[in-house]
């Protein structure tokens, strides 16, 4: 990792905004772009530059969004409908319900192929969502077995005693919420990225 350039605080703020905007870029155009802009800022908006000089330099440079848009790989700048991404989301969430495991796996591959999601998005889609809602379905199948372990017994002269050998109900409910909630949150995040174009 290259050291941070010595720049005016206003330029430093611009650097941070650019890095945020550039998160959607693949690594190959992103890294050289950020290096080049850092070098530009070091020269045009160093720590000794006046505020007016820095503001002028930043205005000439353009907005972080415009710079990132110009760095989008060819063929992705005018993007059509996100067919691949919608298919990926459907398969990730529901694929395992149609074709167990394989449906989700195909969805995971489509996620990796997409150019619209960042690496973090892709990791979330695959790791937070292993099995998608199919995992919840499988968990639901296993849950009745948990409760069937509940039983009562009474020895002569002693009160009735009941108990369960399975996990407590609260844990079952918590796991269900996590298994349902995590895929939903990731679904909202990934779908939200598509709305941004």
């Amino acid at each position: 990792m290259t050291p941070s350039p010595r720049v005016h605080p206003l330029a430093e703020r611009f650097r941070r905004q650019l890095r945020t905007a550039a998160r959607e870029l693949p690594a190959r155009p992103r890294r050289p772009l950020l290096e080049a802009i850092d070098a530009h800022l070091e020269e045009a908006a160093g720590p000794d530059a006046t505020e007016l000089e820095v503001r002028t330099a930043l205005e000439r440079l353009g907005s972080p969004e415009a710079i990132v848009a110009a760095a989008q790989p060819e063929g992705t700048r005018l993007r059509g409908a996100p067919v691949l991404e919608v298919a990926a989301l459907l398969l990730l969430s529901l694929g395992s319900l149609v074709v167990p495991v394989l449906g989700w796996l195909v969805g995971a591959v489509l996620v990796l192929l997409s150019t619209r999601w960042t690496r973090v998005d892709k990791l979330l889609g695959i790791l937070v969502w292993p099995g998608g809602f199919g995992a919840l379905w499988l968990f639901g199948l296993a849950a009745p077995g948990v409760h069937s372990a509940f039983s009562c017994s009474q020895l002569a002269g002693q009160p009735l005693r009941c108990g369960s050998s399975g996990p407590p109900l609260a844990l079952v409910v918590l796991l269900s919420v996590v298994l349902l909630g995590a895929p939903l949150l990731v679904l909202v995040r990934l779908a939200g990225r598509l709305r941004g174009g």
Partner: protein
Amino acid sequence: MVAPPRPGLTELRRGVVEFCVLALLDTADRYGLELVRTLAAMDGLVTSEGTVYPLLNRLREGGLVATDWRQTDGTRPRKYYAITADGRSALARFRADWVRFREGVDRVLAGPARPGA
């Protein structure tokens, strides 16, 4: 000052600016800020200085431009851009195409006015 974007001009720029970069590098190797400022000083060629850097990166990936770090006269190290042999060939082809294209457009634009107009 960098020219504000106009839709028609944006379309005209597309595909042309990269050859302007190659033409500038054909005269001398230049570092990023120097190259970007030279381009931006030419009216209407770029919308903003920052958008030139992605273009430079594409030219480098395409093998038309090469880069190396140089330090001259005690200044900070700078990344210099230089045109490659492939870049010169592409520029030569563009020069020929551009002359034909420009002459064709000029002929159309300079055509006789509609009678009575």
